[in-house]
């Protein structure tokens, strides 16, 4: 013991007190990056945040840029009128148009590859003093901008509403540029049983910032989303986006989700199918309109809660199918309904012993006086042992015979009214063993 002997705890505590491991080089850079990111995300007034300043400057810059390049907003709102294309302006090839084409080319050259409102403006203003007015020409009833495409919610097709945006001139009606914005989508399927998975196919053209609202609180910004409607109901799906012409478009369609029923039934399990033995089937199904029972003996029934007579004992699979007016269905099958009962043993939790003296523990299974404490089994036992203890752990009763239970007496004396502990162990004829324990309340009752 003169050695510096110590126990494990001390050994580890002493040696690990200054246990140091050198970190991998470069770890600091990672940490630094994380700090920067977190600082960026957490806004603090007490220290100056360069990133926020940069963000504000960037936003302000972007805002200014957008403001300057936007076509005068009043011009748009005032000119939003729906003019059927035929009567609105007769497009005639004029000299102006030629000029404007040139203008357009010039504009395109200035801003290649982009058809922005800016270029529209350029085109509109360049030849002479024409106001850059916009006329929406609609092929059918669809009206862009705030007029929701609410029509045509029929299940077959969503139609193909198209909107042409033309920057036209009041005088000549020439069309220097046309952005065709199309809003259209198709849902497949449009109705079905809950939970219903619906694929949306988006046929829209020249759209930016697509957003979907599925009407049950769900959203998506995918172009072709798939969505699952969990609950039954009627949902108004809205597709919204900003067209490349800067106008907001939206279109709606209804999706019908029907309630799916739930099949559930029980029956008198402890009865054996036999001739003239009625068996009750209890139907606990929800949401069903029609039922079909298959009793497994080639007999069927359409009633809700049938009573069935089997011709003989046997192995039957009972099946219940439930469906609704909308062809939503569910089914439930119980295989081997009456034969494959698990062998088990059950132990009661209370008994009332005979007050007039010990009975020896013999009992009759069909006697419901409950004067003897004994387990009940539906199987055949090859081994059995029952022990009963009192609260102090004293063994009061032991039996190795299932037909002998405890009568509540210990050395010829009735024990007091109390809770007693039992332990039961044994083996079924199929080899399955069991060990269970629990408590039983002894009640003295005249």
């Amino acid at each position, binding site marked *: 013991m003169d*050695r*510096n*002997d*110590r*126990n*494990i*705890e001390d*050994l*580890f*505590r*002493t*040696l*690990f007190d*200054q*246990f*140091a*491991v*050198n*970190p*991998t080089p470069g*770890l*600091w850079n*990672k*940490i*630094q990056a*994380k*700090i920067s990111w*977190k*600082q960026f995300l*957490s806004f603090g007034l007490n*220290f100056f945040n360069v990133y926020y300043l940069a963000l504000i400057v960037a936003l302000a810059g972007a805002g200014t840029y957008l403001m300057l390049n936007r076509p005068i907003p009043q011009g748009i709102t005032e000119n939003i009128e729906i003019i059927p294309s035929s009567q609105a302006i007769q497009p005639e090839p004029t000299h102006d148009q030629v000029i404007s084409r040139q203008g357009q080319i010039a504009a395109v050259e200035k801003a290649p590859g982009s058809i922005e409102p800016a270029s529209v403006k350029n085109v509109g203003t360049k030849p002479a003093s024409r106001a850059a007015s916009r006329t929406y020409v609609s092929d059918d009833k669809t009206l862009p901008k705030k007029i929701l495409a609410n029509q045509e919610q029929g299940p077959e097709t969503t139609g193909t509403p198209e909107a042409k945006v033309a920057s036209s001139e009041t005088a000549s009606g020439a069309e220097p540029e046309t952005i065709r914005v199309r809003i259209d989508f198709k849902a497949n399927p449009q109705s079905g049983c809950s939970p219903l998975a619906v694929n949306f196919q988006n046929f829209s053209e020249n759209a930016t910032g697509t957003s979907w609202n599925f009407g049950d609180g769900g959203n998506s910004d995918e172009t072709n989303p798939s969505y699952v409607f969990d609950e039954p109901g009627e949902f108004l799906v809205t597709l919204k986006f900003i067209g490349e012409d800067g106008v907001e478009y939206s279109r709606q369609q209804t999706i019908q989700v029907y309630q799916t029923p739930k099949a559930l039934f029980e029956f008198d399990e402890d009865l054996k199918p036999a001739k003239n033995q009625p068996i009750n089937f209890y139907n606990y199904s929800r949401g069903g309109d029609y039922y079909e029972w298959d009793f497994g003996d080639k007999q069927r029934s359409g009633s809700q809660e049938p009573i069935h007579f089997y011709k003989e004992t046997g192995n039957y699979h009972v099946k219940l199918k439930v469906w609704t007016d909308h062809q939503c269905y569910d089914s439930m099958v119980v295989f081997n309904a009456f034969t494959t009962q698990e062998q088990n043993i059950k132990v009661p939790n209370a008994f009332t012993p005979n007050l007039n003296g010990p009975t020896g523990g013999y009992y009759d299974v069909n006697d419901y006086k409950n004067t003897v404490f004994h387990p009940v089994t539906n199987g055949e036992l090859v081994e059995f042992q029952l022990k009963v203890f009192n609260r102090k752990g004293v063994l009061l009763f032991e039996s190795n015979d299932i037909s002998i239970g405890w009568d509540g007496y210990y050395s010829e004396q009735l024990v007091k009214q109390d809770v007693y502990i039992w332990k039961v162990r044994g083996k079924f004829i199929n080899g399955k063993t069991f060990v269970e324990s629990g408590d039983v309340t002894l009640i003295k009752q005249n």
Partner: protein
Amino acid sequence: MLDEKEIIEGCCRHDRKAQKALYEKYASILLGICIRYSGRRDEAEDILQDGLIKVYFKIKDFTGKGSFTNWMKKIMVNTAITHYHKNLKHHYHQDIDDVREMDIEGSLFDTADFTREELFGIIKELPQGYRMVFNLYAVEGYKHKEIATLLKIDVNTSKSQYSRARSMIRKKLNSLKKIAEKVDGQER
């Protein structure tokens, strides 16, 4: 080199220089703690990163009472526990219920007989749950009740895991000692 007080003050101001000084001064010892809990270097460094971020952003909560190092160590331990919970499903869980032998002989050891690296090697090989309990109880000195709360396990689980971890460690220490004695004997 900045001293501890300057580092703390600097970190309160989010001064990058002070943060780096803190890292350089304490990273290795803190990583020692993390690796003790995790057993794997890459994971330990993740824990260190998360823990240090917490240190940098919570440094104002450090009251100045008690040791700054211990405060940081505690944060590392807590971060390691968080990681343990997060990664519980990733770890291969080894059930060693069959480790039951309780050899009483040879439960005292000399500090001089073992190196830190040997001890770490032993710790590293423990199953994850045992390692957590052993570290918390033996090295950090937590009570079983506290460990149970921290690891969200039963007090008795903590106790039994600890005793199993302890007996595993003892076995390994003894075998290490025997090897050492053999080597010594051969040298003589």
